[in-house]
Each structure stands twice: as structure tokens, then as C-alpha cells.
């Protein structure tokens, strides 16, 4: 065991955990967060996605020791039901979910990508989401929601590919 420092959704934590533990288990069990979820444990589906340093990270294949001191944002770190983040609001507006299990992957991957590439084309956004899986197959609505969010942050017409 070792003491690992982490900041999660703005709160600092010092956690006494096995340093080989994947970050996901620290978030979902030690910190009892509900956003990041176990999907595959292999980095293949995105359900465990969090944002670290502006990038979407697969927390199921990221050992907690490798992100010591990091600032981690989970889905619940973006906004709340009463005050959702604009990308979350876009998903509400489009009713872009069914079971909702994939949403950390979809929303956080899209947000991190768009933060770095605000002028991305539809094709580039789709490519950025290629490693995310939604088995209810809600992608038509999800891409509408992401486009709605892009329109809001860019305040202008979208570049179509």
C-alpha cells in the first residue's frame, strides 16, 4: 500500500491504496463515484473514461500510481442535474441516451477532443469517438447532441465535411 495524492473533481484526496490498482477502482470504490464505469478492463469500450490534463483517459487500464498528483475530472465533475455542463445539457435536449452506461466515454471523450479541437469536422469527431462503444446504439442522437454543443461553443455555423 502507498499513499497516493489525487485531485478529483476539484477535491484533493490522499488515498492509501495498492499502487498497482487501476484508477477506475479507486474512483468507483474508494471514492464511490458513479460516473466512471467498468466496461471491459481492456481499454476497448470507454465506459471508464475520465479527463486528466485535458485528455480523455481510460481509467481501467491506468494504474493509480501513474497519475499521482493528477487532476481528474469524471462525468459528475462536469455538472449536476440542477446545473448541467453545456455538453450534458445538449444530451438532455436531444434525449441522447438509453441505458446511459456508456455516457462517460461518449461525453468526456467528445468534450476533451472538442476542447483541443473546437473547429473539428463531423468526421473528426466521429473518429475521436471510434474507441467508444454504445450498445444501445444511440449514436444518431449522440452526434446530434455533440453538434448542438459545438454550435453553442463556437457560436457559429459548423464546418461540414
Amino acid at each position, binding site marked *: 500500500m502507498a499513499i497516493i495524492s489525487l485531485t478529483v473533481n476539484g477535491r484533493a484526496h490522499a488515498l492509501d491504496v*495498492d499502487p*498497482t*490498482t*487501476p484508477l477506475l*477502482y479507486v474512483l*468507483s*470504490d474508494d471514492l*464511490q*463515484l*458513479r*460516473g*466512471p*464505469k*467498468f*466496461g*471491459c*478492463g*481492456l481499454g*476497448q*469500450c470507454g*465506459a471508464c473514461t475520465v479527463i486528466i490534463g485535458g485528455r480523455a483517459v481510460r481509467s481501467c487500464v491506468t494504474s493509480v500510481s501513474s497519475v499521482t498528483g493528477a487532476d481528474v475530472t*469524471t*462525468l*459528475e465533475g*462536469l*455538472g*449536476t*442535474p440542477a446545473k*448541467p455542463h453545456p455538453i*450534458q445539457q445538449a*444530451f*438532455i435536449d436531444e*434525449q441522447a*441516451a*438509453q*441505458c*446511459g*452506461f*456508456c*455516457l*462517460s466515454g*461518449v*461525453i468526456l471523450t467528445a468534450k476533451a477532443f472538442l476542447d483541443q479541437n473546437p473547429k473539428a469536422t463531423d468526421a473528426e469527431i*466521429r*473518429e475521436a*469517438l*471510434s*474507441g*467508444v*462503444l*454504445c*450498445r*444501445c*446504439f*444511440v*449514436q*444518431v*442522437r*449522440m*452526434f446530434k447532441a455533440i453538434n448542438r454543443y459545438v454550435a453553442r461553443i463556437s457560436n457559429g455555423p459548423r464546418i461540414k465535411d
Partner: protein
Amino acid sequence: MRLTSEARAALDREGLSRREFLRHSGLLIVSFSAMGVSSPASGGQTGAAAAGIDAGQLDSWLAIAADGTVTGYTGKCELGQGMHTAQVQLIAEELSIPIERVRLAECDTAVTPDQGTTSGSQSTPTNFNSRNLGLAAATARETLIQRASRRLGVVRDQLTVVEGMITSHIDPSKTVSYGEILAGERFSIALDVNAKRKPHQEWTVLGRSVPRVDMPAMVTGQLEYVQNIRVDGMLHGRVVRPPAIGATLVNVDERSVAGLPGVVKVVARHNFVGVVCEKPWQAIRAARALKATWSPGTKLPAQATFYDHMRRQPSRDTLVVDSGDVESTLRQAATIVRATYLHPYQMHGSVGTSCAVADVRGDRATIWSPTQSAYPLRNTTAMILNLPPASVRVIYARGSGCYGINGADTVSYDAAVLSQAVGRPVRVQLSRQDEMAWENYGYPYVVDQRVGLDEAGTIVAWDCETWSAALGGRPGYGTPGNVVTGALIGLQPAALEPRANPPAPTSFNNGSNAAPSYVRGCVGATCGGTGAVKSERVLAHTIRSPFFTGPLRSPNRLQNTFAHECFIDELAARVKADPVEYRLRHLKDPRLIDVLKAAVNAAGWDTRPSPGPGRQPTSLVSGRGLACVLYEGDNGYCALVAFVNVIAATGQIAVTRLVASQDCGPISSPDGMRNQIEGGALQGLSRALGEAVTWDDTKVTSIDWQTYRSLSMSADVPVIESVLIDRPEEAAMGAGETTITLTAAAVGNAVFDATGVRIREVPFTPDRIRAALATRG
């Protein structure tokens, strides 16, 4: 009312019953029948329930608190498809209250009536027609108005209900609220079969696209899934499955994990092996390290020749329909056309692996489970734990979308067995491999079609013979061996008794869509089919599967419909008829005809035979195809038009546009229905284009998302247009499995239209398309 896990755990610790809890929380309570035995409440999906909650009593379905909050109790749970919100709409509508005032408790054997399994697109027909929850809400409204009439001294006709206030429209000072009428008391009456549902002309909540009430919590990561449930003292379990199908446990070396941190116990029971640790990562490491010795498995039939293998096995045969004159009619036919269609095993492949929490201590057990079958799971878990069913409580908790029986039931048994072994609460979450290698797959199918045509090209006889493979399935109320954990602890799956000479059918049941839409479906003097062909025979063979199988979204129906709707297309092409015109020539059901016409009109269908003129599969070719069905023979009319591009060089299919039309009677939520149409169509596309379970000599080899291919988010997704046909005067039907039933057929037909090549085997992989195009030259 959604209790948090903490609240539920606290309740359970205190031994508080629902009766007591609701009294404490100011709500009313369910009624308990005198004998403690209820009559099942669902539409034909319940077994020998021994529930204490009497579905014939209004208080079992609805409670109204003094503050006017209405709590509904339903046995149909939210699986991610919007049934929670739809049922809230139903209650709000019937009682004329805002949806914010409605709470809904779902699928908890201590709280809700036994409605069997939430499956088969049956939640809407079961609860939105004039029985069960719908009847309860109507009974409640009528009762409240009667009581208000007496209390206010105002005749019923002069009373109006607005937001839970009943008021005389002659003298508005005469008014009383629901809460005042009941004053914290129960209704204490039976459901009134004569209570009238509110006329659809008066609807203000049903029939509207009400946003899902759970959406804000979902998108902000605050919704509690079963994966998030934590109870005091909870440990983490992990199962160790056999390395091969049929392998049996020889020995477990507990010393192999002795030095690992957090190990609480190694559990072995018959062929079931698991470890329990303090923390999840410790359990994963211990399960990986645990040395177990297994016997060699059963040699599996070769995948390459599996469809032929299916034809040669002893089978249980069922005659779905037989007019008795098929052979003689075929002998007189001008032309006989034959084709064979093939469909692989596919998996549910939930994004989240299955998870459950069990707390088994002494003679009591509580299971938090994402099961579709709370009451059945209670009874089968009791069998596994050797407890009476009344000592087991199953509480439904949201899971990852299941699409049928994924690992939800089996992982509930895993958690129960491990918890009983350690006497503390245990949470089990399966690994990706354990989920995929051992789930109850969707059935593989071989379908032989043989049709006779007359001189004009009209069908005179349709003969269909199918082979499917099955093992286990839903455990129901008494067969836990139907899923892997039950079998591993030594309980047998339901036996498949071969039967070579099936009895004549006594009624026409097209619940598996085994009969094509174009036959009359006559048994005796009654004809239940949607078509016109009089000479008809459908014979279904079921063989024992080497793998567990079970319902996967549109079970049997998708496979049969793929074969029927592609074959009708072949026949149309054979006689050079337009695929729509040819279908209409053989259809009789006016609603199926209407959905078909609605879809082709919206799609801008170009009327002509397939394939399109001058199609040369050289580079990129385009085509259109369609399919239609009355889902389950009685539960949702749907038609789907697909537009595709096929790249000949690569064999890739790009579906550019899907146009669906649907008639499920009255529409509860148009947007909710569209969401199901869209998701179903794309899930159908994923299954049509890429999904197939694979195996080697001893084990399943599709064990993750590299080896089982799901349609990627980066794939070009088609534009999806939906035409909703609202028929509020008709019975309510299900809308969750309609388009998925049609996608493979519509896309296959469009590929034929584009290329002139008929693909008769799912999935339509690039290799398969390329090979088919090459054969054509």
C-alpha cells in the same frame, strides 16, 4: 419512489417491512392477501408466484400520500428503454396530476406486484391496456371521484379533476384533494375491471414526448446503477470459470492465493469457483492467481460445419402451421423456388459487465440485481441458497442495457453463493471474458424455404423448415441451471426432449414469427396470419446447443424474419415484380399493409423489380431494400426501407438511410418510440454487418470487443427517419424490438438490389460480400 441503496440497506438492517417503511414515510402501503398468495399480474409471463402482494388489490399498485404524492408499484422495470418515464406518464395521465408528483417503485419482491419478467416488448401491452397498472390508475381515479362526490354532495358529472383536486364546476368552492379524501388511509378495494381508462382525446401527458425523468442524473453521472451499490461490510467477489465448455473441477489449490492481500475466502461448490476479497482489485488479482485444475472439456462441433451439424442432431419438432396440402400443391406449381438462410449465435454484449450485490446472512437474503425477472430470480436464488422464497428479497437495480438475458441472473447467483459462503455482503462484477464466454447467446438458425409459384408468379404454397439450437434460457421460477452459475453448482438446465412427430397445432401462435407474413396462418377454422397464401407449413426443429442460449432482443423473430423477408424478395425478383407490389399481392392485414405503404411513401421508393437496371458490381453501387413484419404475430407493426452503398472492391456495405414506419396502437411517447426505432435499427445493423460468436475445439473465442465486433461509433451511421402511425383506439403494443427484427432483411435486400447478389448468411462481413461478388463474376 426510488430508494437509494443506503436507504434500502438501512431498511433491511432494521428489518423494516415495506408496510412499516411506507407508514414512516407518510405513504400508503400495499395490501397483503389473506392467504398470502397472489394471482400473477402479468400477461402470461408468471409462474407459480407465492408473493404476498395481491395484484388484484388497488393498494398493491398505487399509494397516495397526504401531500398528494402518488407512488406507483410496478413489476415492469426500466431497462434503459424509457419504461420508467412512460409508466410515470400513465399514472399522471389517469390521475390528472403533474408527472413531478408521481414516484415509481420498480421490481422489488418486498414492494411490487409480481409481473414476471420485463421482456418481450410486453411492458406496454401489459400495463398500458385495461389491466394491471393502467387499470389500477383508472380504478383509483374513479374511486376518488366517487368519494369526492359523496363528500362534497356534488353529482359526479359536475366534478372535474385538475392536478389532483376534484372540484365542482358549478360551485368551485366545493373542492377536495386526493390527499384529503384518503387522509393517509389505504384504498382497500379491488381493481375494478369496469373502471374506464381516460379517453385518449383528453390526454395531456400520454401521447406527448415527455423527457425521460432519469436523463439528467444519467448524463451527470449521478444515477445509481447496481454497479454503484455499496452496503456496509461489503466484500468483493470474483468468479473463476472453467477453461473449456464441459470442463469439471478436479482441484482448487487455496495456497496459490494464500499470500495475496485482502483474500477472505476461496469458495468451491461443485464446479463453481470464486474468491472473495476486501477490495475489487484484490479479487481480480486473486482470481487470476488462483490455481484450479479442471478436466478436459467437451469437444465442440466445428464452427465451419456447424449449420450442417444442426441438421443432423436429434431435435424437438414443432409444427407451427400445416394446411395438409403443401406437398400436393407444390407438385402442381409452375415453379418451385428454394433457398437456405443462415444466422449465427450472437451475444447481448452489454457495455457494462453484469454485476450484483448479495447479502446472505443466516436465513435471510437480499439481492440487488439488474435482473429482468425479480420474482423468478427470488425463487431460483432461494433454491440455490436452500432457503424458502419468502426469505429472499430481490431488489431490481439498474444495470447496463441488457437486450435480453445477459449475465444479470447468473451474476446474481454468483453473488448469492459467495455471500452465503462468507456470511457478509458480496458484490460481484464479471470480467469482460466471463461475461462474453458464458452468456446465454441468441439462437443460431438454419432456415430452408421452399415455395411454389403459379404461372402468374403468385405464391401458391409456402413450406418452411427451420433448425435452431437451444440450451437453458431464462431460469423462470424453477430452473436456475438454465444459466451458467446454476449449472456449475450442479443444477440441470431444462431438458430438451427430442420429438420427431410433432402434434398438430391447436392454435396459431406466431410468437416467434416462424410463419412468414404472407401465409394465412389457419389452424382449424381460425386464421391468425397476416397473409393470403392458403397452402402453408412451418416445421421448426430445436436441437441441443453446446452453448447456453436465451432471449436476445427479438429472439427467433429476427432470425425467422431475416429468412422470410429476404426470401419474399427473392421471389419478387424471380418473377420480376417490384418488392412492394409483390408483398402487397400476398398480404391481407390492413395495418401491415398500411405500415408498408407508409414506409415506402416516406422513403420515395422507386417502383421497379430488383436488382436495379444495369448494375455492375465494379466500384460503388447503390440499392434499396425493405422488410416488414407484425412483430410476434400480434405485437407491433413495422416496415423498414434501407438504402445502401456497396463498395465492390472491399465488400463493405454502407447504409446511408433508413426509413421506418411503425404502428403499435396508441403512442405513449413519440420521442421515446423514435429512440427505440433508431437504437433498434442500428443494433440490428451491427448484428447484420459484423456480429457472430466464434469458438474453437473447446471454448468460445469471442471474448472481448476485438474478437466480437460491434458497430463502431466512428462508422458512418445512416440517416434514420421514423413515421409513427398513432392508433389510439387500438390496443397498446410493444415498440422495443420492431426495427431490429427487420434491419438484416432490409439491408440484405438492398444489397441484392445494388449488386444482384443474394447474401443468405448473417453477418454480411466484407469477406463474405467480396466472395459472393466474385462468385457472380
